[in-house]
């Protein structure tokens, strides 16, 4: 009886995943597509839970569906209500409709073929028995890894180098966003209901973030989920129209943005200079070092995700050297990126340039 109900549940879950994915990608309306994508992310988090991957389920719900959804919604809300910025798709767009449908069919067949090959290779691969070597190695070394949650052990000890580069990827994305222009204008002050919700929700989210960070050592949780929850608190405050959402200003903002990678690199290099391998924590100190790195990583992940949500350089907080009004010298010579004036399209609520105190 048990396996039948499980099979039915699996079937329903998978059908909803595929249909949500298909629906999100088939609609012409960008707004509908983003909301369906967020639903797809949440159902996917359910799938991770079912496959006994609670850490990934937390991250998918918080970052995959939550923050990606927030970024996409903020982008969609700025878009003129026409169906998105229509541009030729990546493949050259042939003129006549006849060839265009031919190309569509060709690409559809190509993707179907890819799915077939991928599935066939996957089934062949699933037969082979060589897959458990790493799982056993992780279990064997878990005792000296400093944490008891195997996923955190892999993320912050065995494959710590991956996580270091991944934090660098996050930093690169934010620096790229800053180079592109100013932040979006703030939102209008929220009504009493949403304002009281934000007033109550933000502290609870900060508390949950601290709990997730601490629990990550021995149970599902960790720096990424905690950072995403902290970012959610700041984003709720910003949506409620607050101008001060907890981001430090000036030099300390730069410090917090850099803290995650800096602490990780510092710990690695200090260990290197002490004769141990790079990022090779001594077993006695591993737990404490991992907690220090995770705390810095949480702060950096939260800050960078909030800065990404702002969509550009927060003018008051991020000060840059050089001429205040950047005068563009010779033509292609890279004059300063002309600060993109705020796009005309109204955001969620027509935000005034300077936020009213609320």
């Amino acid at each position, binding site marked *: 009886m048990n396996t039948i109900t499980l099979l039915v549940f699996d079937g329903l879950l998978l059908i909803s995943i595929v249909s949500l994915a298909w629906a999100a990608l088939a609609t012409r309306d960008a707004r509908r597509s983003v909301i369906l994508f967020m639903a797809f992310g949440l159902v996917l988090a359910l799938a991770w839970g079912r496959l006994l991957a609670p850490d990934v389920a937390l991250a998918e719900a918080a970052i995959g569906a939550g923050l990606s959804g927030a970024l996409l919604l903020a982008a969609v809300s700025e878009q003129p209500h026409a169906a998105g910025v229509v541009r030729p798709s990546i493949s050259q767009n042939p003129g006549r409709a006849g060839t265009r449908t031919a190309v569509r069919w060709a690409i559809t067949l190509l993707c179907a073929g890819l799915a077939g090959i991928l599935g066939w290779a996957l089934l062949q691969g699933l037969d082979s028995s060589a897959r458990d070597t790493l799982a056993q190695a992780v279990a064997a070394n878990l005792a000296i890894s400093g944490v008891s949650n195997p996923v955190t052990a892999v993320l912050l000890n065995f494959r710590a180098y991956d996580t270091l580069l991944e934090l660098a990827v996050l930093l690169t994305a934010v620096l790229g966003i800053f180079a592109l222009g100013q932040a979006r204008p703030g939102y209008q002050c929220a*009504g009493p*209901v*949403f304002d009281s*919700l934000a007033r*109550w*929700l933000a502290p*609870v989210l900060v508390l949950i973030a601290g709990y997730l960070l601490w629990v990550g050592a021995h149970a599902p949780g960790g720096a990424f989920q905690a950072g995403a929850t902290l970012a959610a608190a700041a984003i709720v405050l910003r949506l409620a129209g607050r101008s001060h959402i907890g981001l430090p200003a000036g030099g300390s903002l730069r410090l917090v943005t850099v803290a995650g990678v800096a602490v990780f690199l510092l710990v690695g290099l200090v260990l290197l200079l002490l004769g141990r391998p790079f990022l090779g924590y001594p077993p006695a100190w591993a737990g404490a070092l991992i907690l220090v790195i995770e705390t810095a990583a949480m702060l950096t992940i939260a800050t960078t995700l909030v800065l990404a949500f702002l969509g550009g350089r927060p003018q008051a907080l991020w000060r840059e050297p050089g001429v205040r009004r950047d005068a563009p010298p010779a033509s292609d010579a890279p004059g300063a990126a002309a600060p993109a004036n705020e796009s005309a399209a109204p955001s969620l609520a027509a935000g005034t340039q300077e936020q009213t105190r609320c």
Partner: protein
Amino acid sequence: MIDVLAAVLILLGLGFYLAGSIGLLRLPDLYARLHALTKADNLGLGLLTAGLALHAQDLFTSAKLLLIWLAVLAASAASAHLIARHARRRETGT
């Protein structure tokens, strides 16, 4: 005994979820559908978490389950209000 009570609670909760979903599909306009969603589903969730809390091994887990219910209550109430206000404003054009 506990299992029977938990099963009853969970079944009741599912019933309210079903009612909420049918309401979402059948009711004519936005405001009615919002009612269906926020009222039926929240009550369904309350019963569901109560049933699961009975199953939970220790008090701490059941406390967390109830916390989930309270958070969803607050979030769905606020978002329903926002959606209704936004729709209202678009209709009356203010």
